[in-house]
């Protein structure tokens, strides 16, 4: 019974496919899975927009949208109708073909990343041998669409926003890749299904998630920072900061194309959170061994929901980083810590079981954080402030 609830989508798909002749089963099976993904994540996006606006509103001591439905939950419908019926303005001097293709390429590459994520036990669209590499290849292609959007608008602010966004995305992409490589090194495979399998043990009721190891914890923190920067989310949202650059690289987009950019950004957030939970938080595993009665896909989406809440919390709480602070942080702190983390993970592997490796690895990482992070990043000496009052 419990196993059936866990595998309910897989069983449903097999039952539907049983009605078809042999040669049709694989293509139609793929189409069904793709349709589910393409239908589910925009629905989650709609729910997340309301959650974000209410959440950020409450953090800022105001109500969010509360007119459209009870507590404003039908707000996405109003937003959808608005963006579909708004006039699609393309500037005359804009490059029409590139302007049209940019949001399409963004949405296509962002959705392609979901093909390798395991959303439950046996619920992965394609179990690729080089799954993580495929995911990062798709992620690298989103930068090109950001640049295309900014350049084709023939607008100084858009171009500036696009250049900043691409520089930021490239810098943090290196950090993202290096913090994922630690997980690949310790689990021995690039396939995401095998990475979840490598975490699928429980000892004394607690799971063997990679976040519960020193190198995994450090890698997760850096992955989270790099993921927030990759999707241009606060506190790294200078490229689209409303008070700075009008709207950055999507200034000249209106109507449905803007909705596509918005969709692309949120689905990219889902994608990166899902990969983070697969790599570090055990994907579809339950947190304690006796909670395995709850189906695996509920745990996957639960972790996704928690990650979304953390993103929204960060947006409401932290101030925006300046471009040079952001790049400084990426290249001078996150990258050396990621490289050191690789070394520490190797040390962990070869030191053998026991308490010694915990102490040594944690000591190295904490020492590195204190020396590189707190001392190395401190550039100005802050003395006591003197205030000048207007007379």
């Amino acid at each position, binding site marked *: 019974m419990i196993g059936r609830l866990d595998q309910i989508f897989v069983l449903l798909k097999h039952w539907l496919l049983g009605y078809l002749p042999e040669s049709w089963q694989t293509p139609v099976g793929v189409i069904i899975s793709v349709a589910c993904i393409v239908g589910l994540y925009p629905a989650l996006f709609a729910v997340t927009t309301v959650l974000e606006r209410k959440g950020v509103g409450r953090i800022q001591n105001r109500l969010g949208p509360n007119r459209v439905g009870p507590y404003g939950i039908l707000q996405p419908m109003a937003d959808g109708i608005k963006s579909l019926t708004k006039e699609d303005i393309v500037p005359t001097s804009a490059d029409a073909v590139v302007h049209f293709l940019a949001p399409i390429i963004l949405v296509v590459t962002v959705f392609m990343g979901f093909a390798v994520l395991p959303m439950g036990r046996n619920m992965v669209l394609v179990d690729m*041998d080089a799954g993580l590499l495929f995911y990062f*290849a798709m992620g690298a292609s989103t*930068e*090109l669409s950001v*640049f295309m959007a900014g350049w084709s608008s023939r607008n100084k602010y858009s*171009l500036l926003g696009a250049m900043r966004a691409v520089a930021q995305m490239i810098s943090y992409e290196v950090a993202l890749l290096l913090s994922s490589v630690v997980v690949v090194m310790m689990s021995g495979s690039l396939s995401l299904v095998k990475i979840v399998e490598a975490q699928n043990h429980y000892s004394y009721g607690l799971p063997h998630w990679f976040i519960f190891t020193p190198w995994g914890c450090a890698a997760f923190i850096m992955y989270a920072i790099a993921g927030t920067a990759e999707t241009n989310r606060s506190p790294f949202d200078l490229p689209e900061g409303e008070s700075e650059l009008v709207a950055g690289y999507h200034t000249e987009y209106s109507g449905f194309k803007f909705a596509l950019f918005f969709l692309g950004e949120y689905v990219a957030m889902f994608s990166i959170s899902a990969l983070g939970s697969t790599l570090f938080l055990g994907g579809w595993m339950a947190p304690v061994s006796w909670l395995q009665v709850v189906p695996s896909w509920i745990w996957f989406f639960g972790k996704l929901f928690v990650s979304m809440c953390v993103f929204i919390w960060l947006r409401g709480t932290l101030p925006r980083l300046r471009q040079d602070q952001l790049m400084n942080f990426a290249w001078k702190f996150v990258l050396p810590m990621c490289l050191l983390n690789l070394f520490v993970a190797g040390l962990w592997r070869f030191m053998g079981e026991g308490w010694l490796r915990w102490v040594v690895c944690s000591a190295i990482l904490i020492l590195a954080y204190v020396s590189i992070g707190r001392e190395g990043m401190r550039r100005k000496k802050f003395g006591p402030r003197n205030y000048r009052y207007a007379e």
Partner: protein
Amino acid sequence: MGFVFYLISAFAVGGALAAVLLKNLVHAALALTVAFLGLAVLFLRLDAQFAGFAQILVYVGAVAILVVFAILLTKGSEVPKEGVFSKTWLAGLAIAAAVFAVLAWAIVQAAPSLPNQAEVPAVTVNDIGNALMSRYVLPLEIIAVLLTAALLGAVIVAMHEKERAKQ
């Protein structure tokens, strides 16, 4: 030869032609990206998944963006007055055509005796990793040194000269 192969090759070759012929440099860079994608799909058809995805990650994700940044930083978006092709374009075209003619003749001559193993090689990423660490460890280390040297060299070459401006 199936329709799919022709389609993908058309993308790759068409993208390459557009990259070389277009006047607008940014359009040419984007056509180059299409050519890279077409080549990556050809790699995937040849059962080289690692090489195909690495091609997308490195070329589309990094080299194409580098090219576009360089075009923007050198104000390449303005079309030059005397046209985009050099004065000796005919000689260049003739040389390229001659090279292609020689290569095509060699391939067509050798076509019957080319190896044609049909079964898919069972190569996993694990095998590639093992090979990189055992048989190819020296090239791997040399590539690491080369990339470090290229990184430092590119930064030094492209850096602003701050000292001269003050004097």
